[in-house]
Structure formats: structure tokens, C-alpha cells
């Protein structure tokens, strides 16, 4: 029986599964408010709080507000609040690890849809070359610094309170997600202060970048996402893990070819067992695209729940059957 279930999972069509799950989470997070769902404010994806119908708010919004408190409050009683929020965030995160990105994040899903649209138009995608890749991937850490350090500086009195939600103001999710509930009010430049002009313009520039970028590059924004960087810091503690058996790997590069995030280690690193890298969105396309038995597998608390198999690969790539055509 267990064998049958395992066979079913390992031979499953991941794409369909993922599509429906992503659709579900997209609707859930964007429209959940209409059903009075509220998962709190510690959700580890860009389920933006500017969308008033969200079913749970991106953790960065409360985090920035919490950290922006004056230091004497922050490091005394208020730290309990910060800590509990953080623990809730961690609890959400620990179970699914970065699968939040690949399956639940509305912004990620949106990018996947834009990618599908491009595919429909028949336009090929672009990739970064090695040098671009290495230099650009640092940007998400810069954003993470903005998320964490800027509020702290406000609390210290070194920075104006206007910068409290600096990242949120620049984040395309603020502009885009409310659109889905008919709220276009974020598509504007705030002329109230110089800082506001700067930040809201940036927000729109990043929104434009988001649309063009994700049209031309798969999961364009995830590459710069500070939430992804934040996830990575705690990914070692997570229960769900992406693992690799280097002995079984032939470095054929199939996983790398399908990787939306261009992670080379997935194919080239045969030493690490934990192959999750900071850019990874745990979409598991690599596992589905691996033609070696057991070379890549997803473990939940060390129990493999989804493994790469020769048969599963052949089925997914439609290489398990072949009809002879009488054309020759």
C-alpha cells in the first residue's frame, strides 16, 4: 500500500499539482479576507498587507514596524512581542521551508503565470550569465539589510520615521497585490515628502521591472527577494529539506536546465547533501527533472516524501511511450 502511494507520488505530474496548489494559495492569500480568514501577520511570503482582503500578512510589514520602536522599548518589554512574532514566523517557515516561495507566494505564482503567458506567445526566456548572476544575487541581502537595519536606525533616532516601511514602499507586491481586489490606489506617487516621493517612485519602478523582468526571465523578482534571503538564514532548521545524493548524480545538468533560479550547485555540487541554496524556491522542478533514481529527494523530517526516479522522469517527459509514425 505504502509502496503504491510512493509510486503514485514519485510518478506524479508535478506541474499540474503545482499549478493547482499555486492557484489555491493565490486565491487564498489574495481573497482570503472575503472569507474572514486571518492567519495573522507572520506569513513568510509576500502576501501583502496593503491588500486589505489578504488572508495573512507578509511578516516584513510587522517586522519593520516592530523594529522601528525606540531602542529602550525595543530591547526591553517590547522585545517579547518581536520575539513571539518571530517565533510564529519561524513556525510557519520551519514546516515548509522555502516551499513557501515555490508554492504559496502570490508574487511567485504571478511570475509563473507571466512566464506561462510568455510561453504562450512563444518568446524564449533569458538567463543571466555567470558574472551577472554572482553580482546580482547579492542584491537580496541589501534589501534584507533595508528591512532590518533601517527600522533599527529609526528606533535609534538616526533615520526619519518616514523610512519605517522603506522596503514595503519599494516592494512591487504593495502595488500589485491590491490590484487583484480592485484597489489601484497604490499606483501613485506620494508627493507629501521628499522621502515619500523617492520611495513611492521606487515602488513603481520596481513594479515596472517586475512585469518586464518576469516576462523575460523566469522568477525574476525572487532573485532579489529579501524574504528569500531571510528564509535561507533559517533554512537549516526547517523540517522540509531538499537533499541530494552526490554518488548517484551524473552531473547531466537536467535539474539545472529546468531550474527557474539558475542554481548551478544543484547539478554541479556532488559533495553537499543539503542542496538548498539561497536562491532556491523549492519548486521541486529539479527533483521532477532528475533522471537518476534517488539522486534528488525531498525529505520531511528525514523521511523522503518525493524522490527522483527514472520511471517518473520518463513519464513526465513523455519518454515512457512512443508511437511509431509512418512518415518515413
Amino acid at each position, binding site marked *: 500500500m505504502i509502496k503504491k502511494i510512493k509510486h503514485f507520488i514519485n510518478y506524479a505530474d508535478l506541474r499540474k499539482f503545482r499549478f493547482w496548489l499555486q492557484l489555491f494559495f493565490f486565491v487564498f492569500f489574495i481573497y482570503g479576507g472575503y472569507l474572514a480568514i486571518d492567519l495573522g501577520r507572520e506569513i513568510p511570503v509576500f502576501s501583502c498587507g496593503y491588500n486589505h482582503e489578504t488572508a495573512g500578512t507578509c511578516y516584513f510589514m510587522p517586522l519593520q514596524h516592530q523594529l522601528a520602536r525606540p531602542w529602550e522599548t525595543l530591547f526591553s518589554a517590547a522585545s517579547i512581542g518581536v520575539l513571539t512574532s518571530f517565533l510564529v514566523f519561524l513556525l510557519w517557515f520551519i514546516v515548509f521551508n522555502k516551499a513557501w516561495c515555490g508554492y504559496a507566494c502570490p508574487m511567485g505564482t504571478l511570475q509563473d503565470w507571466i512566464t506561462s503567458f510568455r510561453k504562450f506567445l512563444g518568446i524564449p526566456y533569458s538567463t543571466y550569465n555567470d558574472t551577472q548572476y554572482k553580482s546580482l544575487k547579492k542584491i537580496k541581502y541589501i534589501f534584507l539589510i533595508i528591512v532590518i537595519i533601517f527600522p533599527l536606525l529609526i528606533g535609534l533616532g538616526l533615520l526619519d520615521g518616514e523610512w519605517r516601511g522603506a522596503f514595503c514602499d519599494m516592494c512591487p507586491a504593495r502595488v500589485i497585490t491590491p490590484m487583484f481586489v480592485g484597489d489601484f490606489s497604490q499606483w501613485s506617487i506620494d508627493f507629501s515628502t521628499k522621502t515619500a516621493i523617492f520611495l513611492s517612485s521606487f515602488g513603481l519602478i520596481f513594479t515596472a521591472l517586475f512585469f518586464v523582468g518576469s516576462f523575460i526571465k523566469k522568477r525574476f523578482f525572487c532573485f532579489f527577494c529579501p524574504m528569500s534571503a531571510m528564509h535561507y538564514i533559517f533554512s537549516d532548521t526547517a523540517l522540509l529539506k531538499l537533499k541530494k545524493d552526490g554518488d*548517484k548524480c551524473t552531473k547531466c545538468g537536467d535539474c539545472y536546465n529546468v531550474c527557474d533560479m539558475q542554481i548551478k550547485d544543484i547539478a554541479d555540487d556532488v559533495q553537499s547533501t543539503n542542496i538548498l541554496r539561497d536562491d532556491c524556491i523549492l519548486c521541486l522542478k529539479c527533483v521532477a527533472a532528475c533522471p537518476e533514481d534517488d539522486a534528488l529527494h525531498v525529505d520531511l523530517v528525514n523521511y523522503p516524501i518525493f524522490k527522483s526516479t527514472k520511471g517518473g522522469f520518463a513519464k513526465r517527459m513523455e519518454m515512457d511511450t512512443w508511437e511509431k509514425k509512418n512518415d518515413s
Partner: protein
Amino acid sequence: MIHEHKIESPKEKQNRHKAMEAISMLEKLKHDFKEPPKAMDYFYNLYEDVHCKQKPLHADKVKVGTMCIQVPAEITHALDAVQIRLCNGFYTDDEIGSDLLPSKSCPLVKATVGQFASNNFSDKPDIIISPTTCDQKAKSGAIIEDMGFDIYDMEFPRTKESEESREYWRRSVRKFTKELSNNLGKKLTRKKLKESIKKIGYAQTLYHRLNSLRKNAHSPLLGVDMFLVTNAFFFDKIDAWIPAVEALASECEQRVKDGTDAARKISPRIVYTGSPPIFPNLKIPYLIEQSDAIIVADETCSSNRMFNDMVSVDEWFLYDMVDSVADRYLKGCTCPIFTKNDDRKRRIIDLVREYKADGVVYQAFAGCQVYEMEQRSVLEAMEKEGIPIIYLESDYSPSHLGQLTTRIEAFVESLKNRKRKAK
């Protein structure tokens, strides 16, 4: 009976010699072992047709000859051409080639060049693709060009770890695709390439299906037969090869169910690695299995390396498909021509574990420098893992078999002892 005496032309003489070589090997394979699967008859007949009767298989198609396995078959097939691998195993051709190449060259290269020199093909290639893999093959491309053949040099990097090499090779494949398409006057389309990738992918899946049966404690198929099957992929019609292997796989599956063993229970299980055994030069595999061992897996470019790595594509556009196809031929390749080759050692160790093998036979052609040079490091790696390994050097000549036989028999005997002790 009166025989009409006719003066034999050199070509006829060659063909007679080659047919003799072929048929003697085929007869040995057919009769020296336990009964082979019925479906093997297709392959025995195929070799007889091609090598003894000189029967052309692809008369109506454009034939693209390749000097090495790195030429993407997916692309050739997508352009409605047939890909024929020209690596040659005939001693007859080897001797012809000896006159053209230095005496210490690799017999495989000599035989290949020899065949061109004699210009004696049942399916003569219209264009020859020569990937710049090892020195001998790269240089022999130029020699063949001097003989008046149409040669396309396909640049191949000799390191594979770096990002540059990946990009270099992808560009090389893209360029090859474009040039071949221009040369043949055919346009590569998404649909055709996708179909072709799937067809080759299916062939690979079949190979894996058959191969994984050899993991059983009772392997239903001898190593030599497997080599015949994979060798046939060099030149056979894919559309014929696929049903033949399907039949063979089904029969072998039945054999596994019945518990039919191609060898004996005590027979040591061998992983074969090194220079490729190409029909009719199945000398070493034959000797091994004659000595009551069985080859359960191999790491050679005439078999495993040709089929192992499959292509996956995310978006079925030409860019994506061509690049994915390119990666398969570089990154997964364990050919010793690369500067360093930890992947090959890992692969052998993994094969030993996966196929529960008792030992490894490392065979190198005398003159195949890269395999000879890599021998030491592989031996060391195996020693570290506690895997028994024997290194053999051989060529295409039918003589000097005695010494090889003794060494192989001794190795097999020692493996048997180990096996007994382990019990």
C-alpha cells in the same frame, strides 16, 4: 562441383575477412553460453546482414557519420537524417589503418581511419562530424578529410567544470545545429526536435528498463549480448531497434520472473570500464564471461555512456531544447579526455554498489593514451573503496589471447573466493 574462379578484388577480400571476423564472434556468442533470449536473434541477424552481407540499411536517407558520441543524435534525427557512429572494431580495418597512423596509435582510431582508407561502407556517410575529443580522433579527422570526405570539426572543450566550457559547448552545438541544417537544406522546427528528443528519450528509457533487469541477483542477460544491443544503436534504424529492444526487455522480464540466470549463481558480477568494446572486438567481455563471470554493468562509451544521461526540457523552444541536449553530452560525460575526472570514479563506484558487483575490469586499448593514463587514479580510488579491480591492456589482434585469459581467470577465481568467504 565446378567453381567459377573469379579474381577477388581488394574490397571483396576485405569484406570476406570482415565477414569472417563477424561471423566467428557471432557464432561464439550464440553457442558458447547458455541459451540467449529469443529476441536476441534480431541482433544476431542484424550484424550478419550488415557485416557479412554488406546490406545497406538507410539507402534512402541522408547519413551523418560521427567520429565520437558527443554529436547530438537528437538534432540529426530532427533534421531527417540518420546518425551513424563510425567507431570501428574490425581487425581487418585496424591493419589497413596501421599504414596511415603511427604504430602506437589506438586500434579503434586505426580501424576507423582504415575503413575510410578502404572506402568500404555498407552505408556510406554523406557528411562526417568530428568532435575534437581526444587527440587521435581530432587529428584523424584531418587525415580523413585529406582522403576526400566531407568533415565538420565540432569543437569540444576538454574541461567541463567551468562555466566557460558549458557556454563554449552550447555555442558549439548551436553552431553545429545551424550548419547542419544549412548543409542538409532542412529547417529545424520545434515540433521535429521535440519529437526527436522524445524518440531518443524513449530509446534511452528502454535501455534503462533493460539495464535495470541486470540488477537482479539472476541477471537475465549476458554482458556480451548487452554490448551487441547497444552497439546496434550505432547504425541501426531507430524505428527497428526500438521494437527489437522492447521485445528483448519483455522477454528478459519474463526470464527474471522465471528465475532464469544467464550465468551461474556463483558467477562473480563484473563492472566493465575502459576503452569501448565494439563489435566484433568483444574479445575481453567474451573472455570474462567465458571464465564464468558475468558483466552486469559497464562504464564505456559504446554502451552506458551513450544512453545514461537523458534530456529534460523546461520550455519546448529551440533555444531551450538545443541547450539541454548540449548539456547532456558534456556535463554528464565521463570520457577520460577531460583534465580531471572524479565523475568517472564516482560513476564506477556507484555502478558497483547499485549493481552489487564483485569487481571491476578496467580495459584499455594499447595506444589509447587517456584511458591508460587514467588507469592509476581509478585503481587507487577503487582500492580505497575496497573494490577489487584488474587492469588489462589489449588490442584488436586475435593473437596473445593466452596471457589475457590466464589473468582474467585468476581474477575471476579470486572474486569467487571472496564471494565464498563472504558467505
